[in-house]
């Protein structure tokens, strides 16, 4: 099963045999283990995670090109690469793309792939809903980007303030695509949040109490709660905006009784938890990588957990620090200024704990480790500039300048994204069975780090010198020329580093295919449960659900301590790992309905914007999806999340059927013989 056949880079070997499934539902469920159908109809969390990752990387290129356009336009004063109007579209779409179409779904990719593995279970609580989330996200993202071809992208900035977001000042359809597109994407994340919360609460392996949960899973769980509670708020804002733009209401029109501040409040009540949503999983990734490459457990595990929870709670109390210059009044400004200063504390705790983890450890500077250290350093810089924003009088100078642009890119790119790249390098072998090249990886890292600092470092200076945000050009006598040119050079350096990353994927895959080598299940000598199974991860995850007795369970099965407290190896990784060859495992079946249901939503979107006939079509697709889904017998996704792996708790008819089928060993023959 671990042998490599001629396969495209994205296929996984199927683990269990597939047997005939003749459902009671309307149609026979799809059963192909390979080919495009095994991806389009999959409900396997690992495939869903990989699809999220692939989609996000694609949109990363889109957003990156938008960034390069911005930097080209601003390289020198007075350039006319982009008109002012087009520039507005490009920076708006860049922002929305990077946030909703790149960073958030990349975090979802890791959360989807890793959470069931890290808590020792076979899949998420609701596998079909999981697939649905992905397809809704994908279709929503494509829908959003079709605005480019249908009259222009959204152009009000990613935060899209009123009254600029209304029809009077933005008569085109760009912002309609923003409102409807983000609504669709929000639904995807909300469904996913419910799914993952239930998964983590309910489906942990036996013995995995809360304080044995890996830090990544903790951070991802807090993120899901943030999503759960923040998304409805922006849903309200987007609904009100849509009604304003399409049905003539005046929720944000001050001249007719509305209040633009309502938009700001609603948006930022979502928007601030949103930034924690973007960074917290990355904190988790770093907390997984650094201990492995320091050969030390994470320092202060309880503090890591509690600080994460604290950030989750406190993140709700700081939103109006985005509104210091909006006229909320001095008392509110003071209150939010204070709360913003406080929220730096738990993050500082994390930084100290990562450093303490590395201190005295036996450090290995693999590419993943480099990226993780990258987050620790770059996020610190971004966090410090963030603290300077917390002081409202200072912020009044800084706001709407490039100083802010520098801050959020340091925390989002230097923080969230660097860790994500680290996660790619760390977990790639688990996902695909081979490592990404380390030498090329180091080029990737250093080019990216240098390019990133060249791009965004000077923006601190530009901002303090007075360069405004969102201006499409500047004049030569303002003194911004030099640093803007440096920033543009840096941006293209980042672009090269991204190309190096993709080149690394291609060359590593080619080498893997050529040499037919597959890495072991534990190539890094790591700590978590996910390294206990073969690489690439078998479809059924664990042969037998592991029983957990302590944090970093896998590590403690490999290593113990002698009398002097030194680390001693007590078992090789192979001895304590699972083989991945269980065959009597019942998995949730693939399904047509998630993608059918999801396909209805963009049509409803087009209908809302253009012509209700489309919405009717979309509604029918939606209903068909719901109908088919409900009629299909719900797979019991918990079928093998019990104490025993392949063994069912009680012999049921279905188990008997499966044993008969497994005994034959030839699924194709079964297919032909099955009664109907």
């Amino acid at each position, binding site marked *: 099963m671990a042998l490599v056949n001629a396969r495209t880079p994205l296929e996984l070997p199927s683990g269990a045999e597939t047997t005939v499934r*003749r459902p009671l539902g309307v149609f026979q469920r799809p059963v192909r283990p390979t080919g495009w159908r095994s991806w389009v109809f999959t409900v396997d969390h690992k495939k869903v995670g990989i699809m999220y990752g692939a989609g996000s990387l694609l949109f990363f290129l889109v957003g990156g090109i938008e960034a390069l356009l911005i930097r080209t336009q601003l390289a020198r004063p007075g350039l006319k690469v982009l008109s002012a109007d087009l520039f507005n579209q490009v920076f708006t779409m860049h922002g929305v793309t990077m946030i909703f179409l790149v960073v958030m779904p990349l975090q979802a990719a890791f959360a989807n792939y890793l959470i069931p593995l890290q808590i020792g279970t076979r899949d998420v609580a609701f596998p079909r809903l999981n697939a649905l989330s992905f397809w809704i996200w994908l279709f929503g993202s494509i829908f959003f980007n079709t605005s480019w071809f249908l009259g222009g992208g959204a152009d009000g900035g990613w935060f899209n303030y009123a009254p600029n977001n209304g029809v009077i000042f933005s008569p085109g359809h760009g912002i309609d695509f923003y409102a409807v597109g983000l609504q669709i994407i929000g639904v995807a994340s909300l469904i996913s949040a419910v799914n993952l919360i239930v998964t983590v609460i309910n489906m942990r392996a036996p013995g995995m109490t809360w304080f044995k949960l890996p830090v990544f899973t903790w951070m991802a769980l807090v993120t899901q709660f943030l999503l759960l509670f923040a998304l409805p708020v922006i849903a309200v804002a987007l609904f009100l905006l849509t009604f304003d733009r399409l049905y003539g209401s005046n929720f944000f029109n001050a001249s007719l009784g509305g209040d633009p501040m309502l938009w700001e409040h609603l948006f930022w009540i979502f928007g601030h938890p949103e930034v924690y949503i973007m960074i917290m999983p990355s904190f988790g990734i770093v907390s997984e990588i650094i201990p492995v490459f320091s050969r030390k457990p994470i320092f202060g595990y309880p503090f890591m957990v509690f600080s994460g929870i604290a950030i989750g709670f406190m993140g709700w109390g700081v939103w109006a620090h985005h509104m210091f210059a909006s006229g909320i009044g001095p008392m509110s400004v003071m209150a939010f200024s204070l709360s913003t200063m406080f929220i730096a504390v738990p993050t500082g705790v994390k930084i100290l704990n990562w450093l303490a983890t590395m201190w005295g450890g036996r450090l290995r500077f693999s590419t993943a480790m480099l990226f993780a250290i990258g987050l620790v350093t770059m996020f610190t810089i971004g966090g410090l500039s963030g603290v300077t924003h917390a002081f409202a009088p200072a912020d009044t100078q800084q706001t709407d300048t490039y100083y802010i642009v520098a801050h959020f890119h340091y925390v989002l790119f230097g923080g969230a994204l660097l860790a994500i790249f680290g996660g790619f390098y760390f977990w790639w072998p688990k996902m695909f069975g081979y490592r990404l090249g380390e030498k090329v990886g180091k080029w990737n890292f250093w080019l990216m780090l240098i390019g990133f600092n060249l791009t965004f470092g000077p923006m601190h200076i530009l901002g303090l010198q007075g360069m405004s945000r969102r201006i499409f050009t500047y004049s030569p006598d303002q003194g911004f020329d030099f640093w803007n040119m440096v920033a543009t050079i840096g941006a293209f350096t980042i672009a090269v580093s991204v190309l190096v990353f993709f080149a690394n994927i291609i060359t590593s895959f080619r080498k893997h295919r050529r040499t037919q080598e597959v890495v072991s299940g534990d190539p890094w000598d790591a700590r978590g449960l996910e390294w206990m199974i073969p690489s690439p991860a078998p479809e059924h995850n664990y042969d037998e659900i592991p029983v957990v007795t302590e944090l970093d369970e896998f590590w403690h099965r490999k290593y113990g301590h002698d009398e002097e407290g030194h680390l001693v190896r007590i078992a090789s990784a192979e001895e304590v790992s699972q083989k991945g060859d269980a065959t009597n495992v019942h998995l949730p079946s693939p399904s047509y309905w998630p993608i059918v249901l999801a396909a209805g939503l963009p049509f409803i979107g087009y209908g809302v914007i253009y012509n209700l006939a489309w919405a009717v079509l979309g509604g029918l697709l939606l209903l068909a999806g719901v109908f088919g889904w409900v009629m299909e017998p719900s797979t019991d996704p918990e079928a093998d999340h019990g104490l025993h792996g392949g063994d069912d708790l009680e012999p049921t008819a279905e188990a008997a059927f499966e044993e008969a089928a497994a005994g034959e060993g030839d699924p194709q023959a079964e297919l032909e013989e099955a009664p109907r």
Partner: protein
Amino acid sequence: MTDVGIEMTDDVKVPPLEGGHLTEHEVHPTATGISNEKLSMWVFLGSECLLFGGLISTYLLYKNRPGAIEVRDTVSGAHVGNAQRISDLFDIGFTSVSSFILLASSLTMVFAVLAAAKHQQDKLRLWLGTTAALGAVFVGGQVYEFTEFLNKGAGYTSNVSTSAFYTLTGFHGVHVSIGILILLATLALTFRERSQVTPERVEIVGLYWHFVDVVWILIFTVIYLIK
């Protein structure tokens, strides 16, 4: 819960289902003892609080914002006044009756859940149907109320208070309507052989329905009664 993909054929022995319901052993243990489905509904309802909170807040912000509504007599169409707020046009008597109906539907929902627990299929269907019917009466009442307001001249875009009011109550009405559809679908599914309508699933439908009722309790007080 039916496991996936097992056809009822002569070759395969399937354990007989008790009275058309699924056997309890097919639910697998969770770390907390609460089923995934029930937990997911509560998690979702937690999120819905934020949604309705936002809509209620929008109404509260805009309920007194000026903007004339040219009130017309519903019969003759003659102009009879200028209301500034949608709340000037409320008919508390009518809405009170609506409120009692929705409250009653919550009670009938509870009886449906009890009947499901006792495996009393006929009673279950009766109470599900009654709940759906009461819900439909409520929605009908809302539609009538809105039509009255519209005829009086309070359209969606008349002023921000009407916009906020219709948006809030409209969202609630849509939630009730979806609830009715779910109730009817559940009712229909109880007629299936090997019905998947377990007592717990009825309870989960009930949770959604009660939440919708609870939101109405909020709306009725905050919008209609508090001046």
